[in-house]
């Protein structure tokens, strides 16, 4: 009898402590290591930002953050996985501008509303860049050429429906001009074609042409940003020239929609501390990437604004399904 009571007591005790531990676990997030899903291949821009972030945030979280690359479908595979992850904060992801463009292409099951933004880390505007041997010294001259020769100015981009294609389309729709958009398999091959004078311009980011601009082989005519680029202060913005087009790619941390409030707050606080580290900013600088931190709520506003713009644009140019 006595022993029976003892067993019961022990069982109750174990159960109680187990329940308490579980409660404690929920309160003390994170209790185990966190997976950071990157929807692009190791070694690319998004991956490098993710690894620099993981490096920095590890110092501000009791558990480690590990990077996992899930590539495919121009980002759709990885982003779908982040969306569908259990919302407990142990699988977070790099949310890129493709969150706002892929749904319109009809190749993704997610929309911008399926994610809770934690922090934007980096943003790169589009820029119109030409070969240094080209006759156009200013963006006005280039646009004048495009006006006189509709469909003749070939602008290389990183793939149909990808961000730099949409940037060139946005410029075309705002100015009423007609370009010949040539998709390449990524930004680098497009830049190579421009170097060989096989196309007239590219719409990729200043970072992706910076070494050639520094070497004097390419020339940036304008950037599609609110302010001039710090690295190339001589290149005007399109806004200055009276063309209201701003298109940028961005990368940041997102979690699935239903992630609990306390987890989101913990991640936001840790991310804020991580990006304030000089080491993180130095790392971005080294890679020619611009630091563009936004806290969760502001990031959400920026994401929704882009989602609306791309939806309208892609419908207009017939890309949206």
């Amino acid at each position: 009898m006595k022993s029976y009571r003892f067993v019961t007591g022990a069982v109750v005790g174990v159960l109680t402590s187990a329940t308490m531990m579980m409660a404690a676990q929920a309160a003390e997030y994170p209790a185990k290591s966190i997976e950071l899903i990157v929807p692009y291949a190791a070694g690319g821009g998004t991956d490098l930002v993710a690894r620099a972030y993981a490096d920095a945030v590890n110092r501000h979280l009791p558990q480690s953050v590990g990077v996992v690359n899930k590539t495919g479908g121009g980002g759709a595979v990885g982003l779908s996985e982040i969306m569908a992850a259990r919302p407990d904060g142990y699988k977070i992801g790099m949310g890129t501008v493709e969150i706002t463009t892929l749904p319109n292409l009809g190749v993704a099951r997610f929309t911008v509303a399926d994610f809770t933004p934690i922090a934007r880390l980096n943003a790169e505007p589009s820029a119109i860049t030409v070969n240094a041997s080209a006759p156009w010294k200013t963006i006005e001259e280039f646009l004048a050429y495009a006006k006189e020769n509709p469909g003749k100015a070939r602008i290389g981009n990183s793939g149909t429906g990808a961000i730099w294609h949409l940037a060139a389309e946005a410029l075309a729709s705002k100015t009423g001009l007609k370009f010949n958009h040539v998709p390449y398999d990524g930004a680098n091959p497009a830049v190579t074609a421009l170097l060989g004078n096989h196309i007239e311009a590219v719409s990729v980011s200043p970072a992706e042409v910076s070494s050639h601009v520094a070497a004097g082989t390419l020339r940036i005519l304008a950037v599609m940003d609110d302010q001039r680029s710090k690295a190339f202060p001589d290149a005007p913005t399109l806004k200055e020239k009276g063309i209201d087009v701003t298109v940028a790619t961005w990368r940041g941390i997102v979690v699935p929609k239903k992630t609990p409030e306390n987890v989101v707050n913990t991640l936001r606080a840790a991310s804020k501390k991580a990006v304030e580290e000089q080491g993180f900013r130095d790392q971005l600088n080294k890679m020619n990437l611009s630091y563009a931190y936004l806290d969760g709520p502001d990031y959400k506003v920026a994401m929704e604004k882009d989602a609306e713009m791309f939806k309208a644009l892609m419908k207009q140019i017939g890309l949206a399904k």
Partner: protein
Amino acid sequence: MYELDMLLHGAQALFNQPMALLLALFGVTLGIIIGALPGLTATMGVAILLPFTFGMDPLSGLLMISGVFFGGIYGGSVTAILLKIPGTPAAAATAIDGFELTKKGQAGIALGTATFSSFLGGTASVFVLIFLAPVLARFALEFSASESFALAVFGLSIIASISGVSVIKGLIAGFLGLLLATVGLDPMAGFPRYTGGYTELFNVPFIPVMIGLFAAAEAFKSLEDPQVRAGMAAALDRIIPPWHVFRRQLGNIARSSGLGIVIGIIPGAGADIAAFVAYNEAKRFSKTPENYGKGELGAVAACESGANGCTGGALLTMLTLGIPGDAVTAVMLGALTLQGLQPGPLLFKDHADLVFTLFAGMLVCYVMMLVVGLGSLRFMGRILQMPKSVLTPTILALCIVGTYAINNSMFDIWIMLAAGVAGYFMQKWDFPASPVVLALIMGPMAEANFRRALSLSNGSYDFLYTRPITAALLTVAILTLMLPLLRRLWSSRSGGPTVNGPTVASSAAEGSK
């Protein structure tokens, strides 16, 4: 001479940095292992090591990555020759004749030839990189979409020469590969084709298909008879090929290395294409082309020197112009940028000391590859002595792990297993697997670049004959396709009706065997 002087200075600087040399050795060794494992390619090895270079000094980090690059390209050949399992796409070409040599009991010499050819091709390409970089870099910019299209067509024409016994079966396999290559996102318009709603199929799962067709199919085949040992146990007696045998390959290796370097320089074309093109040209220039596909040492030498010749070529455009020649150097571009070394024309001006020390280091990497390679061959050769009941499950496990590692995707594993079953039946019915692989490499390249070229020319087909490189490559492609036919005609005519000799009909039949 400026370059030679700088190189000597570089070598001096290099030998004062034992840590960098140690990391280079580590990189080479790791690269060989990664290359030998199916699914793990040089690209992936470099990408995985990239974050570790963040904290290193530029020389150590870059040498380690170069080591992985070089070792990874070479390592694929070891398992290709011993087990017909190409560790990398480039080694799919090596596997054709390499495995036949193993079956003949000449695995040792095949491996030794592969190692020496890789070393010679790679070293030659690094020397070209050092001395001719500025001259050759401009050639890369001549290459536009139309030239890439023509190169891909030329690549596809090689199917005729790697088909083995039956050209018809080779062509069937090749067209099957081309059909598979149409799956995925349309290269120009970006809409999904034949994906059945799976986002995983947006890119053709090329490496899983290759692993399935070669490695898994081979494993399935050996399941038929698990008791048998590989049967070539005693074959690995001699690794270093006798001089009188190797001497005959030197011309072949020189030509293949040259081809490899040029293909490496061309943006978007890498070691896989180089290996197949080198195979084709070695066969074209060989006195005994009929031996190709049946275990010809020249084929192994050509594929390996071609693939490794690519390394220097790809690095050349990456370093001088900042444009990567293939997937590996695209990742390396990131590594250089991270170290604050902006690749491009200014790199040689601003960081000449470091660049030439790096060049010296690359040469050392190739010597290390030779030593580590030759040293490990005997150990690797023991694979042949393993009973199949142990080897087969190991291979299948490696196939699954390697496939999963590419994209962390279970989906890819199913693709690989399906390809394995298909590959098993292809083997049974004598359909060669390498044309499928070739078509999967060249098909998307041909399609995307043809349509891009049309877009660039505003819809005019003139680029097919107005651009000299395009026209030349297309002509060579047609010749390659026609060559077997012409040979047959020629042999039937020269062996024509003679007294008591074979009749026209029988000699023609002989030619088609």
